[in-house]
C-alpha cells in the first residue's frame, strides 16, 4: 500500500501474525441449522444469544456469499457488546421478515451492497443494549452502581473492588432485566474491533472442504434430480418419451410438469444421463420467435418515447435551445450471473411439513415459493440456509425453490434438485439490456445542461412493486438521478420497456452499472471536445463533492496518470458515488493491431466511510472490478428462436488468471458513515476500461461488450 497518511496502511489490512493465530479457533456452524438455544441462555433480541459458557452467538440477518458480512457484522456486534472475539459464533437467521428484515429494503434480503449500512445502527444498538443488561446484572450481584462497572473481552469489571464476572455467569440474571432504552453507542475513537483487521470467520472451512453450501446438503435418503426447463420462456412440455431414460441404471423417476421435466436418480450422473436420454417435444408458445435483434429493435424504438421524469433541476430545454448539443447513445447487453455454485435446492415434502436446504439471498421468499410450489401453508415450511457459492443477485430470486418444491411434491423422500451449468445460464433472470441517451451542452468548458434517458427493464417494479412510483424505477436511475457532477440544469428520465422472452433481474451493480457506464463514457467524450484532461474535467465539476475529488486526486497520483505510454496503450478513468461510496478507478490497457484488448493495470481509490474490516473492502473492490472487466470484455447473452444461445464457460467466458492485471486498491481514511462496497467496483471498471480504449485508439465505444472488430488498426481513421 503506501505511506500516504490519508490511506490505510498494509498492516491495517492484514494485521499481525499474532492476530491471525488468535482467530483461527473461530467457527461458523457447518450445517444450515442453528444450534438449539441452551437452557441457560440470554437472548435479549433476535440477533444475539449468550450461553452460560459465555459463547456469543450472532444470528445473522444477512447471508454470507463471499462479501464477508458474517465477519464484519459480527465485529459490529462484538464491538458494542465488548465480547471476547474468540467466543463469537455466527448462525444463519431463519426466515422471519418481522425479525430479520433489511431496514434499507423492507424485506429479509441481502443485496444492494447495504448490509453494513442497513445494520450499522440497529445491530450496534441491540448489542449495546445487551451489554447494558449484563452490566446491570453484575452491578446487582455486587450491589454496586452500574455506572462504576466497565466491560472488556466478555467480562464485567468493577475496578474499585477488583471484581470481574464473565458474561456466561451473568446470563440468568441478565435475562431477568428489562432492557433499557436509548443506550448510548461507543465513540468510534474507542473502537477495538471496527476499523481493525480481523480474519474472516467463514474462510478456514473453505480451505479444507468442510464448508457447506446448499449444493452440499445431504439429508438422509436424498436423491438427486436435474431438470430441463422449457428452452423458450413460457413454453410448455408437449410430449415426453422416457423409455430410454427409465432403462438407465440409477434412474429412479421422471417428473413431468407443465413447463419442465426432471429426472430423479441415485446420483447426479444418473440424473444427467437420464435427462440426456429423454426425448422431449416442447410447445414453444408465443416467445418462440424472440431474437436478440427483436429485443434491441423494440428497446431502441421505445427509447424514442419520452420517459417518466425521475429528476429535474433548472431548465435543460432552455439551455439546449441556446445552441450546440452533444448527444450519444449507449447500450448494455443482457448478462447472466453464473455463480460458481450452480442453482440448487433440496426439498423434502411430507404430509405435514416441508423441509428445505438451500443458499439464498431471500429467505422468506424461498419459504413463500416453496409453500406455493408444494401447495402448503408457509407455516409448514422450514428453510435451512447455507453459505452461498456466489449470489450477485441471482439468489435474490426464488424460482429455483419453486421448481424444486413442485418436483419434490412428486417424489417420496428428500430430493436435491441441481441445475446443470447449461440450465443455469439458459434460464437465468438476466441483467437487463439498457439503451441510454445522453445529451449535454458545454459552455466555456463546463456542462451547462444535461439530459439522461434510460430505457430498459424496471426490475423493482417486479421485485419490490411499491418502490416503482410514477413510472420511475429508482434502481434504473440510480447514479443518474443523483449524478455527482455539478450541473445547473439537468433532467433524468426513465422509460420502462420489458424485453420479450427473457426474465430480467438484479445483477452485481445493476442500475448503477448502466448509468455509470453511460455517464462516464460521455464525460470522456465531453472532456475531449472541451480539450481538457479527463480527470481535470471531472474534478472541475466536483467542487461540491470533495470526497470524490479526493478519490480522483489519489487515483491520479497512484496510477501514473499522465506519464507516457507506448502506442495503442491508454489509461481511462471513471468516478462515481454509487452505493454511498466515493470511488475513482483508472484502467490501463493495450489494444493490439487486431483489436484485442489486454489489461495492464487497474488502480482504484475509494472513500467508503469508516471501514469495518478494511481488508474486506479491498477484496470486494478487487473482485468487483474483475466482475466488471469480465462483463466488458465478454459478457453477452443472445437469443435465437426464443432460446438463449450461450450454455457454459466456453461460450460465456470469464476472465482467468492469465488475463487479470495487477489491481491496486487505495482506501482513504474516513470517519464518515460506512458506504456500500460489494457492487461499486463492478460499476467503475467498465467505463474506466472503455475510456482507456478510447485513449489508446480514439475509438469511442458505445456498446458493451467490447467489439474488437471496431478496434482493429485498419478501422482507425
Amino acid at each position, binding site marked *: 500500500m503506501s505511506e500516504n497518511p490519508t490511506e490505510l496502511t498494509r498492516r491495517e489490512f492484514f494485521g499481525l501474525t499474532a492476530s491471525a493465530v488468535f482467530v483461527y479457533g473461530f467457527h461458523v456452524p457447518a450445517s444450515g441449522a442453528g444450534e438449539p438455544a441452551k437452557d441457560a441462555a440470554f437472548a435479549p433480541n433476535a440477533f444475539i444469544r449468550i450461553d452460560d459458557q459465555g459463547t456469543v452467538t450472532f444470528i445473522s440477518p444477512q447471508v454470507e456469499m463471499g462479501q464477508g458480512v458474517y465477519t464484519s457484522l459480527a465485529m459490529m456486534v462484538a464491538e458494542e457488546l465488548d465480547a471476547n472475539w474468540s467466543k463469537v459464533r455466527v448462525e444463519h437467521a431463519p426466515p422471519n421478515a418481522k425479525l430479520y428484515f433489511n431496514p434499507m429494503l423492507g424485506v429479509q434480503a441481502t443485496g444492494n451492497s447495504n448490509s453494513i449500512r442497513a445494520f450499522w445502527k440497529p445491530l450496534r444498538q441491540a448489542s449495546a443494549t445487551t451489554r447494558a443488561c449484563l452490566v446491570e446484572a453484575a452491578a446487582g450481584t455486587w450491589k454496586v452502581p452500574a455506572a462504576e462497572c466497565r466491560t472488556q473481552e466478555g467480562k464485567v469489571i468493577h475496578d474499585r473492588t477488583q471484581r470481574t464476572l464473565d458474561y456466561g455467569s451473568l446470563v440468568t440474571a441478565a435475562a431477568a432485566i428489562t432492557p433499557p432504552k436509548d443506550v448510548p453507542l461507543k465513540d468510534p475513537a474507542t473502537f477495538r474491533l471496527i476499523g481493525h483487521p480481523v*480474519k*474472516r470467520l467463514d474462510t478456514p472451512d473453505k480451505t479444507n472442504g468442510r464448508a457447506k453450501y446448499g449444493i*452440499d446438503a445431504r439429508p438422509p435418503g436424498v436423491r438427486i434430480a436435474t431438470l430441463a426447463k422449457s428452452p423458450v420462456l413460457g413454453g410448455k412440455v408437449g410430449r415426453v418419451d422416457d423409455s430410454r431414460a427409465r432403462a438407465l441404471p440409477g434412474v429412479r423417476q421422471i417428473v413431468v410438469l407443465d413447463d419442465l421435466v426432471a429426472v430423479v436418480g441415485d446420483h*447426479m*450422473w444418473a440424473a444427467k444421463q437420464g435427462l440426456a436420454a429423454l426425448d422431449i417435444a416442447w410447445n414453444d408458445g408465443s416467445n418462440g420467435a424472440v431474437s436478440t435483434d427483436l429485443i434491441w429493435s423494440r428497446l431502441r424504438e421505445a427509447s424514442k418515447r419520452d420517459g417518466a421524469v425521475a429528476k429535474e433541476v433548472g431548465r435543460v430545454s432552455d439551455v439546449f435551445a441556446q445552441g450546440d448539443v452533444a448527444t450519444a447513445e449507449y447500450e448494455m447487453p443482457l448478462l447472466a450471473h453464473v*455463480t*460458481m455454485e450452480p442453482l440448487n435446492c433440496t426439498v423434502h415434502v411430507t404430509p405435514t411439513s416441508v423441509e428445505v436446504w438451500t443458499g439464498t439471498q431471500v429467505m422468506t421468499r424461498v419459504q413463500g415459493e416453496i409453500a406455493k410450489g408444494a401447495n402448503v401453508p408457509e407455516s409448514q415450511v422450514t428453510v435451512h440456509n447455507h453459505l452461498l*457459492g*456466489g449470489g450477485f443477485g441471482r439468489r435474490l430470486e426464488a424460482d429455483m425453490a419453486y421448481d424444486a418444491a413442485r418436483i419434490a411434491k412428486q417424489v417420496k423422500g428428500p430430493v436435491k434438485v441441481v441445475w446443470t451449468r447449461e440450465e443455469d445460464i439458459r434460464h437465468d433472470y438476466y441483467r437487463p439490456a439498457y439503451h441510454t441517451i445522453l445529451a449535454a451542452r458545454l459552455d466555456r468548458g463546463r456542462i451547462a445542461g444535461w439530459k439522461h434517458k434510460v430505457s430498459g427493464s424496471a426490475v423493482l417494479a417486479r421485485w419490490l412493486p411499491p418502490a416503482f412510483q410514477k413510472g420511475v424505477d429508482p434502481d434504473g436511475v440510480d447514479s443518474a438521478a443523483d449524478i455527482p457532477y455539478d450541473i445547473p440544469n439537468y433532467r433524468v428520465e426513465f422509460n420502462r420497456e420489458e424485453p420479450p422472452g427473457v426474465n430480467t433481474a438484479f445483477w452485481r451493480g445493476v442500475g448503477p452499472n448502466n448509468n455509470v457506464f453511460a455517464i462516464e463514457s460521455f464525460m470522456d467524450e465531453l472532456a475531449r471536445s472541451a480539450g481538457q484532461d479527463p480527470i481535470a474535467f471531472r474534478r472541475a465539476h466536483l467542487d461540491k463533492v470533495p470526497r470524490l475529488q479526493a478519490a480522483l486526486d489519489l487515483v491520479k497520483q497512484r496510477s501514473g496518470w499522465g506519464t507516457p505510454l507506448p502506442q495503442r496503450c491508454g489509461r481511462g478513468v471513471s468516478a462515481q458515488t454509487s452505493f454511498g461510496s466515493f470511488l475513482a478507478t483508472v484502467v490501463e490497457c493495450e489494444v493490439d493491431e487486431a483489436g484485442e484488448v489486454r489489461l495492464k493495470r487497474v488502480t482504484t481509490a475509494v472513500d467508503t466511510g469508516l471501514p469495518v474490516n478494511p481488508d474486506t473492502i479491498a477484496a470486494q473492490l478487487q*473482485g468487483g472490478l474483475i466482475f466488471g472487466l469480465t462483463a466488458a470484455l465478454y459478457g453477452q447473452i443472445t437469443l435465437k428462436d426464443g432460446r438463449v444461445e450461450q450454455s457454459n464457460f466456453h461460450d460465456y467466458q470469464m476472465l482467468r488468471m492469465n488475463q487479470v492485471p495487477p489491481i491496486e486498491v487505495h482506501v482513504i481514511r474516513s470517519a464518515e458513515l460506512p458506504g456500500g462496497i460489494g457492487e461499486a467496483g463492478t460499476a467503475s471498471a467498465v467505463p474506466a476500461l472503455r475510456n482507456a480504449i478510447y485513449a489508446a485508439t480514439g475509438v469511442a465505444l458505445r456498446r458493451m461488450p467490447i467489439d474488437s472488430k471496431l478496434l482493429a488498426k485498419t478501422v482507425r481513421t
Partner: protein
Amino acid sequence: MIALNINGQRREVDVPPDMPLLWVLRDVLGMTGTKFGCGMALCGACTVHLDGQAIRSCMTPVSAIGQAKITTIESVGATPNGAKVQKAWLDLEVIQCGYCQSGQIMSATALLDTNRHPSDADIDAAMAGNICRCGTYPRIREAIKRAAAEG
C-alpha cells in the same frame, strides 16, 4: 464394484464405469468438498489429484482411474505443500464465496509439487483452468508465491 484409493483409503463403489469421479465423490461417498461447476472441465472447481497430478474429476470416468491414488481437498492439508497453500490462502485472505477454492487449492498444490518457485508465467499456465467468479485471482497469485517462499 470398482475399488478406488481415495486419500489413502480403499473405497469400493458400485457405480456405472462411465460415471465421472466427481459424482462418485460427492453423491456416493458424501465427500462434498470437491465441487461441481460446469461438468465440462472448463472451470476447475472439481479439481482433485490423481497420483499428484491435478485433474478435472467431472470428466474423469471412474473406470479410467485404476490403482492411481486420488487426493481430494479433504486431505490435501496432510501434504506439505497442501498445508502451506491452505495457510497462505488464509494469511492473505484469498477466499470470498469459496466455492471454487477447493479446486484452486488443489491446482496450486499440484503446481508447487512440481515447481518449487513458480514464475508468474508458471502460475498463469497452471491456474488458468480454474475460474473464480468472485475475482480472487490477484490474491491467489500472491498466496502461491507466499506458499512457495515458505520453502
